[in-house]
Structure formats: C-alpha cells, structure tokens
C-alpha cells in the first residue's frame, strides 16, 4: 500500500461537543456504514457508553475516501476516550496518529478537558485540524470561538471548517482538510517491526485482540512477535482492520492501523503503550512513552448477599479481561464480610465498573467510599501504602502521613473565579497560577489533595459555577498532611467499612455531617441506635436513631387485603437490599454517606 495515501487521525472534543456524531457522519460519508445499518454513535459499542455519551473503550476504523483531487485515500480514525481518568490511553492512541481533528462547540468554546487533550496531541507532534461544530445552533458564535482557539492554543483557524455534525453541513470540508493537512505516515517499511499497542479487547474464542499502529516494518499472519516490555512471544494467527466490521487481511503494512490475534490468554499480558516487534528480527529499541498504569482510586466492593461472593469474583474476572487497568484483591471487612478492594484509574472508571457489575452481572453491591493511596511512614523508618482507611496502623507507630496531590486546571468564566477560589481553598488547595484565556474566561491552577477531589469536588464545582467551569487534573506528588483516621460506630460497634482518613481540621465538621446523614439514611429499628464519629478513640460527634415504635397500617378491611400485602412485600424487598451489620440493618447508600457531605451546613 502506498503510504502517502494513508491518513491516521483522532478526534479531540469535550463531552457533548459532538465527537461521536462527527465520527458517525464521517463513517456515512465515506460509505463505510450504510445508512440503514447506522445506530447512533456507532463507535461507542458498550451500552453504557451510548447511554452516558462517553467513550470508554477505544476503537479504530478504516475508511476509504475519494478526495476532490481524484485520489482515493485510506483513513484510520482512532477514537479516544474523553475523560480525565483515561489520559494515558488517550495519549497512546494519539501517538498512533499523525493528526487530530479538534472539535469545538461553536456556542461553548474550549473546555479544560479539550485543552488537556490538545496539549497531549501537541506533545505527540500531531497536526491539529480545528473544526467549529454546532454552527446551526442559534447561540453559535463561530468567530468568537475561532479567536479563542487562536488565543489559547495558537492555532490558525482561518480555514477551520464551520460544520454541523448533526445535519452533515460542511462535513466534507473536514475530510478534505484531513487529506491536505494531516501528514502521511513516514515509517520505514523495510526496518524491523515496531508496532504501538493502543488498545486491546478480549474475545472468548480468539483470546486478546490487540490494536496496533504499525510504525515501521510490517506484521503478517504466521509472524512470531514479541512484546518488548515483557518479552512475551506469540505467533500471529490473524490480522486485519475494522471498517467497523472486522476485515481479515494477510498483513498490516507500514503506516496502517489494525488488529491482530495471537491466542493471548489475558489482557494483562498486553499493555497499552507497549511496542510489538519481530521475535527473530527485533527492533533495537522500543517506541518511546510506555508507562505502566496504576490505579488512583480504591474502594471496597461487597455483595449485599454474602452468598454472592463467588459471583462477584467471577464478574470482576470477566471485566478485567477487557479492562487491564481494573485491579482487585480479596479483602474482609468485619462489617461487610468477604469482598474485594478494587483499584480504578479514577472516579468515572469506578462508577462505570460498579454500574456494569450491577447491570450486566445482576449483582447487588455495597461500595465503600472511595479512598486514595496514603503513604504511611512508620516510626521504624519503613513505609506502608494504605488503600483502605481501616488498615491504617495505630497512631503511636506512625511518624507521618503523606497523600497524593493533583495539579488541577480549572477553566472558569470571570464571574465565578471568586467562588472557585473559595472552593479550592476549602478543599485544601494551594494556589499556583491564573492564566487569561480571553476577555471572559481564565484558567486557575491549583494543587489539591486527590482525596478531596474524590469526595464531592466535581459536584461542588458544578454547583458553584452553574456548570460553567471545567476541570482537568494530573497527579503531581505526595505531600505530608496532618491526617487522622475517623471511625464510625453504630450502636457502639465500630463499622470498619465506614472509616475514612480526613484532615484533622475537617474532622469535627465531617464527623458531624456523616452522623447526621447516617441518621437520615438508616431506617428506625426496634431499639435506639447511637451513631458516633471517633478520632483516636475520642468521640467527636454523635446522633441517635430513635427506635421504631409503630409500624402498622391503620386501616385494613376486606378490599385492602391485596394492597396491604403488596406493601409488606415491598417493605421486605427493601430489607433485602440492606446489610445486617451486627444487630443493625444498614442500607447500601449509607456506606457512601461519607461522600455527600455539606460541610457548609
């Protein structure tokens, strides 16, 4: 294949700015997908992705486009996830491209997340094709947005297509711009193989399907290949492209984007960012940028019904086949019994996994509040990594605690700067800098403990800026903090699953709001239940759940029998979703109570 006719690109956009819709239009216009086969947003193959309008797993599609110059071009469109949890995966899929289409909403302008991905693209030396979308909206201000892109990113937008992905208006201009601006691949077809892994999925018949960009050399069926990060070797059994249906080919040529299968048993063996080479003619060095991904956020997952422990393990194992970044190991809680401590890339990742477990595997789960990894330096000089607050050693043995901080960039309209600064301050943020974007917006830079972000930072940010601010963050470093473990006692009994690690200055306020929240969430039972928050054995907050004195329907005559029985059945069903901890029945939501705090109250 003639490399000069290949164009590899991604689409970068903020959630809701129309990335998937544009991808759909491109697929239609290149006749890759027939209209009648079209399901909206075809690249988002998981139900959950389609529902939430986000892309979680990547996908790559080969398209053929006859340009106005009369030549036929082969496009590879590599989809990228649009969320901060998946930054590394985005950077690897960008590394598989030569160009990126930057989609900006004509009414909303650039968002923090978009900007972050643009910088990732620039880091990977990508040619950026700006596109202004949604120009059919009455509130569209394409000239203002163009100016913003020029100011903030320094991209020339004179020729940026003004499109409506929804109606298809001017989408062809985007394709022409790709042909004109995105460079063709330039790898050496005769050099030893170097292929970049940017995604993988698990297929129960063929093992792992590896998605690669061939940077140099070629891959063909029968090749013995080697992953340069772990030296694992396999024989290629099948390879090909997707359009988006799978197409089998004899080989993937230099510059192409496609997949191969080699009877690989688990996605664990295949890391995003790894380099594939030939076993008997290996490349001298791997492609740059490979990083092992580590989970940032942990929580405990327990089956509501302890008999479902094995079902949960099997479900997690199945999910992990397709999601190498999910980690889990068995743990036990005195309160919740047997379950798993699970590690996630971020909060969205955690949410998605929980939802898939409940929806696809029909499990009823109790999730404990998310926690970050604390570094606990002991008086004997050793260091323990703490991913579960309940496991924090006793105070006497601790020399100091460190927690991870993030570098947060918040894009915010001028009128909300004060509110956002106040929020960041309340979340123990350290002010770093403020950049001017345009006359109306600024970017605030803060260093904030990740532990505060995983609490209610997103919600708070949204509500204090009416949704106009956007946030991007990356992990920066561990810093020493004055942290304490706060325990919650129900009926005098310590509930380990409710313990959290909290800054000493906030302990009192949080203890108060958690106990009040638990009082609301835990239904009255036959006896009075004291709810206490304690730090180092000292009670700092207390409420009481009064005992249930009366629980009977006033009226029940002949005609009410069915209705009354249904009410009882419903009541019983509700109980099933609760967890009996000692003598107290606790509903699922209570374990997340520590998250929904109103410190201001």
């Amino acid at each position, binding site marked *: 294949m003639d490399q000069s006719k290949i164009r590899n690109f991604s689409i970068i956009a903020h959630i809701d700015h129309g990335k998937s819709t544009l991808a759909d239009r491109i697929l239609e216009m290149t006749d890759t997908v027939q209209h009648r086969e079209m399901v909206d947003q075809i690249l988002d193959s998981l139900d959950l992705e389609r529902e939430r309008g986000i892309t979680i797993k990547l996908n790559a599609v080969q398209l053929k486009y006859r340009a106005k110059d009369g030549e036929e071009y082969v496009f590879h469109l590599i989809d990228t996830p649009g969320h901060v949890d998946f930054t590394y995966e985005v950077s690897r899929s960008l590394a598989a491209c030569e160009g990126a289409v930057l989609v900006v909403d004509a009414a909303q302008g650039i968002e923090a997340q978009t900007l972050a991905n643009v910088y990732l693209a620039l880091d990977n030396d990508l040619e950026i094709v700006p596109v202004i979308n949604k120009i059919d909206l009455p509130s569209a201000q394409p000239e203002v947005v163009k100016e913003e892109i020029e100011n903030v990113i320094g991209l020339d937008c004179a020729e940026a297509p003004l499109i409506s992905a929804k109606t298809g208006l001017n989408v062809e201009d985007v394709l022409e711009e790709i042909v004109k601006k995105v460079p063709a691949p330039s790898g050496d077809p005769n050099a030893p193989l170097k292929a970049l892994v940017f995604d993988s999925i698990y297929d129960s018949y063929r093992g792992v399907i590896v998605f690669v960009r061939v940077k140099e050399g070629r891959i063909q069926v029968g090749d013995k290949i080697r992953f340069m990060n772990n030296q694992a070797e396999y024989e290629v059994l099948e390879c090909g492209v997707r359009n988006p249906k799978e197409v089998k080919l004899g080989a993937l040529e230099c510059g192409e984007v496609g997949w191969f299968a080699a009877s690989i048993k688990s996605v664990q063996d295949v890391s995003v960012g790894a380099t594939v080479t030939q076993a008997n003619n290996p490349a001298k060095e791997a492609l740059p940028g490979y990083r092992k991904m580590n989970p940032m956020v942990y929580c405990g997952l327990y089956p509501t019904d302890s008999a479902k422990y094995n079902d949960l393990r099997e479900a997690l194992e199945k999910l992990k086949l397709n999601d190498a970044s999910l980690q889990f190991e068995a743990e036990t809680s005195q309160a919740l019994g047997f379950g798993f401590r699970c590690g996630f890339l971020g909060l969205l990742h955690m949410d998605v996994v929980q939802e898939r477990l409940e929806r696809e595997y029909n499990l009823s789960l109790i999730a404990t509040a998310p926690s970050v990894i604390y570094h606990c330096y002991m008086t004997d000089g050793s260091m323990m990594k703490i991913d579960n607050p309940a496991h924090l050693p006793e105070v006497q043995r601790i020399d100091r605690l460190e927690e991870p901080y993030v570098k947060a960039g918040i894009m915010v309209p001028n009128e909300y700067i004060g509110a956002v600064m106040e929020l960041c301050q309340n979340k123990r943020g350290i002010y770093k800098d403020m950049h001017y974007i345009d006359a109306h917006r600024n970017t605030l830079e803060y260093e904030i403990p990740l532990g505060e972000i995983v609490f209610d930072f997103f919600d708070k940010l949204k509500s204090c800026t009416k949704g106009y601010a956007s946030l991007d963050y990356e992990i920066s470093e561990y810093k020493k903090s004055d942290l304490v473990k706060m325990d919650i006692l129900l009926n005098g009994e310590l509930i380990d699953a409710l313990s959290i690690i909290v800054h000493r200055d906030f302990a009192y306020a949080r203890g108060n709001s958690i106990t009040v929240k638990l009082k609301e969430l835990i239904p009255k039972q036959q006896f009075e239940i004291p709810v206490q928050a304690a730090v180092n054995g000292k009670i700092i907050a207390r409420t009481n759940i009064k005992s*249930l004195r009366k629980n009977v329907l*006033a*009226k*029940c005559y002949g005609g009410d029998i069915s209705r009354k029985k249904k009410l*009882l059945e419903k009541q019983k069903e509700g109980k099933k979703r609760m967890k009996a901890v000692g003598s107290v029945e606790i509903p699922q939501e209570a374990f997340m109570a520590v998250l929904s705090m109103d410190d201001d109250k």
Partner: protein
Amino acid sequence: MCAAATFKNQSLYVHIPFCQGICAYCDFTRVRYHAGLADQYLTQLAGELEQRVPRQAMETVYIGGGTPTALSLGQLRRLLDMLKPYTEGALEVTIEANPEAIKPELIDILLTGGVNRISLGLQSCDDQILKQIGRRHTFDQARQAIRLLQQAGLTNISCDLIYSLPGQTREQWTATLQGVLSLNIPHCSLYSLTIEEHSEFGRTGRQPLDEDTEASMYFEAVQVLKQAGYQHYEISNFAFAGYASRHNLHYWRYDDFYGVGLGASGKLGAFRYDNTRNFQDYFQGRWIAEKIELTREDQMFEMVMMNLRTAAGLSLIEFERIFQTPVTSVYSEAIQNGLRQGWLHLDEEHLAATDSGMALLNTVLEEFLD
C-alpha cells in the same frame, strides 16, 4: 385450588360512591352526588345484587362509601328496600353517615329499612381542623346528631377519627379524644392519616406528622380509650363489651364476603374479585374488573395477616380446619422469632399479637412472608 379451604360467608358489603363534597384525605371510589346518576346507579346495583348474591339473610350487611347518606331520602329508601332480602334477620346492619345528614326523617327511613348500627364520620372534635380537611359539619352538629340517634333508639354508634393530620398538635388530639369520651358512644375507629397519591393532600404535596409524633398520638389514644372502658379489639378499633363490629370482624377473621357496587371487593374461597371503578363499565354490567386466584400460600398468609390485627388473634383450630395443617408448623420460624421478641403470644387456642407486636405488626408480618 385447595379443595379443603372453605371459609364462612355471611356478610355483604354495599358501596355507595357518592359524596356531597370531597374530603382532602380521601382517595376512595367516590364522585360528587348527582341525582340522575344515583338513580341509574341504584338500578344497576339491584341488577348486580340479583345476579351475584344469593337471596339469603346475611349475618351482617355494611353500607359504606362514599357517603350513603348523600343519597336523597327517596333513593335511600329504595336502596334499603332492595337490600331487604339480605338485611331481614341480620344481626348487624351498618350504614356510614355524615353528622350533618342526620335528621329525624332520615333516622325513620334507616330504622324502617332495618339499619341497627351507624358509623359516623366525625374525624375530629376541633372545628378548625374539620374545616381544613374539607368536612361540612361542626363538632356541635355531630353532638346533636348523636343525641337524635340515641333518642330514636339507634344507640349502636361508631365514630371515625383521623390523627397525624398536617399541622395537628398533640394538644388538639388530646382534646379530640376527650370530646369523643363525652359523646358516650360504644365504638370508635382511629386512623392515622396516610397521604394518598390521588387525594387532595397527595396532589398538593402535604406531609403527615413525623412517625414519632404519630406513634405518640396512637399510644395516647389506646391508653385514654382503654381507661374509659373501651376494649382495644383491633389495631384501630375500640368498643365497649359486646359492641365490636361483627361485619368488620368477618374481614379480620378472613371469612368470605360478598361485595357489590362500584369499586367494591369480595372474597369467595380461593378467589378475590375487585369491582370496576369506572361508571361506564359498571352501567354496562361489566361489574367485575379483576378476579384474582389466591394460592394456598396467599390464603394462609392473608389469614394470619388479618387475624393478627385483632386482640383475640388467630384461632388455631380454624386455621387447621381450613388448611388441614397447624399454623405453628407452616410458620414455625416466624412464630418462634415473634415469641422471642415478645411480639406474639401463643396459647392452646390462639396466636395473637402482644401490645408491642400490634404496634409493629408490619415488621412482625414480614417474617411470615417467604
């Protein structure tokens, strides 16, 4: 179907779906009274009775609503005439009435028609509250009405009361209880307000009082009424000795019963039927909207559920007679647990809820569900 399950059937419920005005808490099958509609309704009711209820004397007949006394005097006479085959010789014939409707002419018609028990919608002894919930009488009017009834010899009177109303204070409730004692009537029923979705309260988003206040009001009422000589014979019902409602006891014993009229229900063996709530359907003779077959398990549970509402409790002999198996073996775990918790009491003849078990009956019954 369980061939052995035979229940007693000696009662008839008749529903009159008309009211002079609609009360704020009500979601029953009822419409504002309209003379022509009521005439047509009575004609249809006669047809339903004839076809569905064997012409035999019942032990009890209960005419409820709605407000049966919303009918004109002529219509009321017509209704009682058409019920004659069932009321003649009956031990208890109850009619629901509103205090403002009680007039000498009405009382005459009721007595002639065989009525021997009146259930009055008193609801409260506080005029302010009566007005708020959309009632059309004052406490004084109610007192007058009761005097008239008693003078005419209709002394088997019950009053309905509501508590836990939005904004109601403990003091107001105490005053209402004292007001009831002053009436010297042999029976009263107390209902805590449930906000029904389709009532005015439900539509306007009103909230009942908190559970704790409601519980206090309930326990206060139980204490006050018991002290005054009433027997607490069912969760919400109190009566002087010999004045418990025979008709309602049939429901609570899980006996069979006939139900006729718009929105009425009945039970015959393994079947419960619900009549339509739609006038059009009813007028065209499509009386029954739904017929539900009850499994043996349904019937056993429902029998326990209903009987535990009464102070007397479930008759062990009756249960075994119907289901050919002792209740203590069907529900051994639930019963053991209830006994342990002090919710239930078991002797040779009855399984009954204790005072604490009665107050927490929903929790107790949950154990009996599989």
